[in-house]
């Protein structure tokens, strides 16, 4: 298996529960390819970090202002 073939299955590899026909081959590739091993672990970390940090926080005061504005507009239409 080449690195390109491995990368094509990265999405499935990130989903631990996915049933992948080639799982054994993919894991074999991981054992002997540091390149793909690092790519997989750091990509997994990338997703986890983006998931655990809200980078566009909606502050409570703005939130209330938006709710009021939205409902007022909806009532008018």
């Amino acid at each position, binding site marked *: 298996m080449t*690195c*390109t073939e491995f*990368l094509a299955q*990265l*999405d499935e590899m990130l989903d631990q529960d996915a049933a992948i026909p080639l799982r054994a081959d993919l894991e074999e590739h991981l054992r002997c390819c*540091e*390149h793909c091993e*690092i*790519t997989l*672990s*750091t*990509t997994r*970390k*990338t*997703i986890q*970090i*983006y*998931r655990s*940090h*809200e*980078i*566009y926080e*909606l502050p409570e005061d*703005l*939130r209330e202002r*938006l*709710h009021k*504005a*939205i*409902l007022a*507009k*909806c*009532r008018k*239409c």
Partner: protein
Amino acid sequence: MAAYEKLVKQYDRQVFRIANHIVQNREDAEDVVQDAFLKAYQKLNQFQGNSKFYTWLVRIAVNESLMRLRKRRTGKMVSIDEDVETEEGSMPRDLADWSPDPEALYGQSEMADILRRTIQGLPPGFRVVFVLRDVDGLSTEETAETLGLSIPAVKSRLLRARLQLRERLSRYFKRRDLKPAQAQDGVK
């Protein structure tokens, strides 16, 4: 109206987030939130119920966001297909492993800055796919339906978005093995 208010409260944060990711400007994002919820309310009778309300709402919000972007950059066409024909991210180059706990390297607000700056460097069509799939947790099928893209298109954008983000974040999260002399501050 009370029922609709409940929906607004349930999804406002996600709509605000996706709008910010596209327009990259807080005031426009606020306008998108208002316009998207108003449009959704007006079109509520068109909502079929065969898809999730959220994916239907996000589709409206994405379109509203793209319209805002177009207004801002007058004369320039903006679409979800913009700038996606890039070779970057097809094969990772920077192979340095990361520090075991990259989140310990930076404070909360510094981290948010890094994450914001990093994802803003990606084309809008990549950012949106990444956020819907990996942050909001929509399935590939739902993401495709929301954006009006094919499933293979979602998959290829997602892969490239993830690899590009990973590569760009490496700059900040790389494992730094200091030489003993450098590790001790002030030692000549």
